[in-house]
């Protein structure tokens, strides 16, 4: 039997606030365990939560970017459960009155652009972190609790069950990440846990409209592992079903080392979190103008920008896709494009040499001045430097921040062109390498390359390659 895969994602992103959702503690990642804590985020007896306005702004911004309908009145509820990382034994979350209802994201999936719908977007607080003795939650002898993370504002985004493969889930997540980065709501660092994803996955006979029994997959720590874990889960469920078995509703853990999912706990129905309205907070009431202002401040989002880059600069789809993968890259391109008309040439240099040098040096794009790249490319186009020199200068520009214009002048890197300048060098090389000249005259084409190389060496690589070639052939 052919099965259709049905996947819904539940994504948590930490909002980029300086302080936590309900207290003034810092949200900085990586501090000494339990150093960014206070009575409120530790849930000490008698402490009370107070809203962080900035978190509400970022949550609304993200909801708007996700086309979710922002509710002017939403409410916080307590989600009650016992776990050592949860200081109050309840999480302040949103239940039946979330901040954002619905929403969607347009994603390029196999078979073209598709709208993936969202169920809801809501604001809640982050739990602490447990560090297990040993390397896995299973069989750990003891665990240590770090509450630095507890109380960081978290946005939960729930998709409709509308994704159909690990690959689709991954693509969706990549687009979601880029969107959230653009909106400035989160830094979405999966490796630091500021973007996390759980997936509900089930199989059903093709053509059926009834959802199959689902498994919830957790602990997928990269986009790649989301894809791998879901593909693994598809194969596992397929096997169970094809052998006539039934899939059991369960929560499983992706084991990155073993590349397989492991059952964490079985579920009988859904857990009873005994939600009820949080009596320590008033309902969240937003002014209409507050939401409208945030909507106006929303930057151009990646999908729109992609189309505009193609149209305005005549870029190919792939080029536009790469340049919009994060906001800074697109901004860099557009800043440079203002001063440089060779758009595709510029795009090629950015996605090729510039990104390569950034990766190599560990530098960040915002440390590079777009005007410097423009200077470099203009000199290349004018023939004042040659391509190898340009590449070398770009590397130095990224690594040590030199101004290529100055370097060209100071080091005399300008290309040597013109008969008068090149001929003396060429004649000297011919005189010093009679053997190679003979070889060339006898038809060995390779000898010409050798002679070109000699001239280049003598001019420290600055000779105009085309003219050099022409003059050399003319002379011998």
């Amino acid at each position, binding site marked *: 039997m052919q099965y259709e895969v049905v996947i819904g994602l539940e994504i948590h992103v930490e909002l980029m606030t300086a302080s936590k959702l309900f207290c003034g503690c810092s949200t900085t990642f990586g501090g000494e365990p339990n150093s960014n804590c206070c*009575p409120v985020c*530790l*849930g*000490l*007896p*008698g*402490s*009370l*939560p*107070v*809203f962080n306005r900035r978190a509400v702004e970022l949550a609304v911004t993200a909801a708007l970017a996700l086309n979710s309908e922002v509710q002017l009145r939403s409410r916080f509820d*307590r989600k*009650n459960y*016992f776990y*050592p990382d949860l*200081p*109050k*034994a*309840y999480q302040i979350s949103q239940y039946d009155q979330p901040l954002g209802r619905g929403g969607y994201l347009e994603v390029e999936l196999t078979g073209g652009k598709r709208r993936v719908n969202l169920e809801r977007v809501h604001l809640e607080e982050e739990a602490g972190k447990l560090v297990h003795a040993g390397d896995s939650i299973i069989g750990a002898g003891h665990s240590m*609790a770090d509450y630095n993370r507890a109380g960081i504002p978290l946005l939960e985004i729930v998709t409709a069950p509308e994704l159909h493969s690990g690959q689709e889930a991954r693509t969706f997540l990549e687009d979601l990440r880029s969107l959230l980065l653009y909106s400035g709501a989160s830094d979405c660092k999966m490796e630091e846990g500021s973007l996390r994803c759980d997936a509900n996955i089930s199989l059903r006979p093709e053509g059926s409209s009834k959802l199959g029994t689902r498994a919830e997959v957790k602990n997928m720590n990269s986009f790649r592992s989301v894809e791998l874990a879901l593909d693994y889960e598809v194969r596992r469920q397929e096997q169970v079903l094809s052998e006539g078995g039934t899939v059991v509703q369960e929560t499983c853990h992706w084991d990155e080392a073993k590349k397989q999912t492991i059952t964490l706990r079985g579920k009988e129905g859904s857990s*009873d979190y*005994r*939600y*009820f309205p949080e*009596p*320590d*907070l*008033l309902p969240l009431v937003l002014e209409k103008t507050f939401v409208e202002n945030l909507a106006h401040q929303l930057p151009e989002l990646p999908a729109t920008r992609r189309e505009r880059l193609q149209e305005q600069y005549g870029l190919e789809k792939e080029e536009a896709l790469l340049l919009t993968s994060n906001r800074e890259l697109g901004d860099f391109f557009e800043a440079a494009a203002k001063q440089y008309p060779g758009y595709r040439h510029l795009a090629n240099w950015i996605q090729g040499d510039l990104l390569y040098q950034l990766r190599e040096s560990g530098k960040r794009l915002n440390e590079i001045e777009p005007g410097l790249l423009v200077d470099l490319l203009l000199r290349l186009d004018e023939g004042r430097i040659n391509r190898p020199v340009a590449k070398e200068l770009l590397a130095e520009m990224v690594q040590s921040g030199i101004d290529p214009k100055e370097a060209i002048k100071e080091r005399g890197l300008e290309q040597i062109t013109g008969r008068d300048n090149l001929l003396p060098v060429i004649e000297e090389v011919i005189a010093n390498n009679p053997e190679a000249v003979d070889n060339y005259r006898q038809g060995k084409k390779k000898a010409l390359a050798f002679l070109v190389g000699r001239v280049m060496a003598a001019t420290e690589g600055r000779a105009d390659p085309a003219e050099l070639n022409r003059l050399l052939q003319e002379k011998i």
Partner: protein
Amino acid sequence: MQLYEHTAAELSRMLQSREVSSVEVVRSFLERIDQVDSYLKAFITQTPVTALDTAGEIDSGRMRGENLHPLAGVPVAIKDNISTMDLRTTCASRILENYIPPFDATAAAAVKRAGMPILGKTNLDEFAMGSSTENSAFFPTRNPWDPQRVPGGSSGGSAVAVAAGMAPLALGSDTGGSIRQPASLCGVTGLRPTYGRVSRYGLVAFASSLDQIGTVSLNAFDCALLLNLVAGHDPLDSTSLPGAVPDYTAGLEPGTKGLRVGVISYSSTEGFDPEVTETVQKAAALLEEHGAEVGEVSLSLTDYGLSAYYLIAPSEASSNLGRYDGIRYGYSAAGDNIETMFSRTRGEGFGPEVKRRVMIGTYALSAGYYDAYYLKAMQVRTLIRREYEKAFKKFDLLLGAASPTPAFKIGEKIGDPLQMYLSDVCNITDSLAGVPSLAVPGGFHSSGLPLGLQLTARPLQEQLLLKTARFFEAYRGQVSLRPGLEFIEKGGGSSAV
């Protein structure tokens, strides 16, 4: 007359005129505590050293001519569910027996800022759950009017401290009558302010939507003095009310002309002592005699109020008390795995009444029961609010009993939770409505035990309550409101419970 026999206002005046020093005042109360508390057991923790230190600082400040708060140097007792920095705050529970908060409740900070020496932390029913102070994990507190009887609860320790002259003022907390009922049973004045008038920050939560810090004092004026200090908006408590705080000591001249008073008529007075009803009627007659327009108001939802309260409060409690899991602070039992650790910690750390309410609340919030219990109770609460709004269109003030009976015997109701719950029947609907409510001594039962009246006003109308309480004080005559405590002088009286 001993210093400990004075009201807070008198002490304040004597301190400001330098007739006495704060050290002398504090010593007098400490001696009184030494004399009677080993018997009455109002305090869980006594803090004589810090109290004398504070008193000494205030005295030297006064010598230097510093501008001091009127209550500076006047000592105070604090209920042991209000967090005090570096001073253990137990909630009368084993689970917090050794818990020392690293921060002050906003109300405790206010008391400290004013320079009030803190005499100690007073006993209560565990986590404020109870009406007799018998649910304290440590010991019950005795009623100074009759040591065989309870002082009421949960703020029994605070009420006894003030009634027996161990403190001129005390802070308490009222969730469903926990200030008013013990004040009534001990013959003192107890105010539950409007919900949100006093910050809850640092008050260990029992039922967040109902908890409110309030005052216990000898009279309405003293109450106003302390209320001035603790009332007001607190940015640390999202549910605290904005707006300026009036001077509660101003405009308290008794005046009842034209005051529209609704005397509460209960749909059922089963369980009410007839002398209680009589006392309320006498009070109504006195008001009418002095120009008030007295009518009858029937709060038909009172019966449902009790049921609604005993669903809402335990529901919130079940969630609020989840944090006592042995991981971060408080009592912690060992276990082979996390579940055993949790259940042993809570099983050994909580007393029976707390467990009962956590179970009731957990049940009421569970999937499939939420709509029938919690949600229904919240709907009843809304109806009760509306009933109050309606009543306050017709009346400025509601008058009723603060407790259906005078103090009952220790052990009398502890085995019957429903009977115990019924002892808050007069207080609970005010709590659900969030309105201010005050218990003021109304007379004595033929047994010699004090009886309290309860006055209820519109939100933020604390001044009207205080003013009317002053009226009753003025017409009370020469009755001594101090328990004799002869049983202690006679060598401890009857055997300990």
